[in-house]
């Protein structure tokens, strides 16, 4: 098991109880998808796993080590092993694609050399390799904000690949992309999962994408797990339970 989450609770300062006792395991090399409505706690869960936020109670075990409350240098080392891709890409807009990819390596580089931006040659080679993996090596010198949405998300994926992550988290990575681009971006996650063997945990909205890419699905509702299993067994009844009676499935191709 690469990740073990046990009875995880998160209560925000304002009193919102976002996670209410989440328990699940993820095995090495798995492609796990988390679904649920907006506000069901999907983002909070991912942010707890890579410790962008600290859980209120419960435990998170990553590669056999309890990381629930690690702090300082140890927290930094943990974050370095977990890549994360966001819905809004979150690139440094005015810098080049290459610089953006290299920022994925910052944790492993000394402060001074990173600030004067003199990196060793192998860092550049690695960055180019990561860009090649997502098929935009030729865009390396362009400004990040001059790229299309789908390309920017691929840069973000390359940035997280730069970390050589054991685990890759993706928080609704295709929610601000059009359907065709969504599919191509999801293909890169699949490629990374299959070829490099990186474990992927991905939040998704659209069930058609879930059926196509997930090996296993967890559904959240109001901070609790209400479904866990294969994507193929989510039938009409489960769908209504997860998304509410009014919901209707929309097909995305």
């Amino acid at each position, binding site marked *: 098991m690469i990740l073990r989450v046990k009875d995880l609770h998160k209560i925000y300062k304002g009193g919102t109880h976002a996670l209410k006792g989440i328990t699940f395991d993820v095995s090495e090399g798995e492609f796990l998808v988390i679904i649920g409505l907006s506000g069901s706690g999907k983002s909070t869960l991912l942010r707890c796993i*890579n410790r962008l936020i600290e859980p209120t109670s419960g435990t998170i075990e990553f590669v056999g080590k309890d990381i629930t409350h690690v702090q300082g240098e140890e927290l930094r080392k943990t*974050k370095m*092993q977990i890549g994360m891709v966001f819905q809004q890409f979150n*690139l*440094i807009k005015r810098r080049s694609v290459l610089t953006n990819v290299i920022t994925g390596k910052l944790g492993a580089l000394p402060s001074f050399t990173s600030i004067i931006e003199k990196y060793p040659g192998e860092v550049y080679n690695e960055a180019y390799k990561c860009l090649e993996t997502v098929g935009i090596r030729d865009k390396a010198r362009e400004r990040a904000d001059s790229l299309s949405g789908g390309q920017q998300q691929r840069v973000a994926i390359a940035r997280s690949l730069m970390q050589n992550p054991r685990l890759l988290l993706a928080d609704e990575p295709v929610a601000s992309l059009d359907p065709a681009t969504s599919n191509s971006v999801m293909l890169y996650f699949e490629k990374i999962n299959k070829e490099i063997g990186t474990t992927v945990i991905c939040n998704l909205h659209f069930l058609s994408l879930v059926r196509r890419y997930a090996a296993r699905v967890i559904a959240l509702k109001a901070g609790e797990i209400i479904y866990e299993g294969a994507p193929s067994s989510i039938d009409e009844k489960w769908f209504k339970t997860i998304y509410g009676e009014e919901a209707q499935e929309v097909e995305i191709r």
Partner: protein
Amino acid sequence: MSTGSDLDKSAGQLIQKGTKLKFRLAFIKAALLDIFFVFYSILVLQRAIYYKFILELRELPFSWTETGIIFFASIILGTFWTWSRTSLSSRLFGIAKKNKTTELTVEIFGWFLFNITFIAGWIVTKVSLVSLFSSEGIQGANRIFGALFKPEFGIFNDALFAIIETIYIALLATLISIPPSLLVSFFTARNLMKDNKISLGVYYILRIILNFIRSIEPLIWAIIFSVWVGIGPFAGMIALLVHTIASNAKLYSEAIESIEAGPVEAISATGARKIQIVWFAVLPQIFLPFLSFTIYRWDINVRMATVIGLVGGGGIGTMLIQYQGLARWHEVGLIILLISIVVWIMDYISARVREAIY
């Protein structure tokens, strides 16, 4: 571990308590404002309408006892008015009853306030169309305008050197202000300082100091420093510098407060160190706003340096006030011409540079 329903219950109580407290606070604020409105209205009615228009007095009399009686009456009337929850202030603070009376009161009293304020302003500023259009006045204006439009080019060299001095005063004040305002701005950005009590304390204290400095106009700083370091360009430069630091620190810190959180989150998620996060995710977002504010500030400072010169801050302003004192309007005309040209050029350049940046 408390369960969800426990949390809900205590939250409910808290909310109820909160709304009660909020209502009381709003009531107190509304009552104070209503008292002020009533006091203000009666005073204006008494002084402007009764004394000025009905009794037609030239000098308006004033007595503390009278004002005190009016104030006392306003406290009673104002509180009573708020109590009825149909007043303008109770509407402003959201505690008014929703009915016809409130609507009518708000509308009529709003208009009433606007009109008496306008009338009071008219009287206080001693607006007089007679003096604006008297033949004597127009003759004087003719004389000055005639002279201004025939500038005396004999003093061109002196004026040119003086305005160059002004530009450098502004430039130096702007340049020296950059490091201190930068430093201060990080300590007055709420998003960087809100995490613990000590830093939040520093934030509030610095904000108060900056607001105080900024509320004193450069003109007054120039008067202070011309006593301190003597009349001349140095006094003008320091005066501008002090004001520029306070203003730019505020603008810079607002730029820091408005950065996108996304890149910061993304870089910190890669396991980067604090300084790397600031360098790669914060600085690129604030660099251009900083540059733009600084250039704009130079532009403002050139204009301010001119005014500061009038009170002994050196440069073209000092020259202008000297010739004005001698009533040599042809020379004044040249100086004004030169100032307008330079200000126009500065304005144009700074606008174009700022456009190019974004």
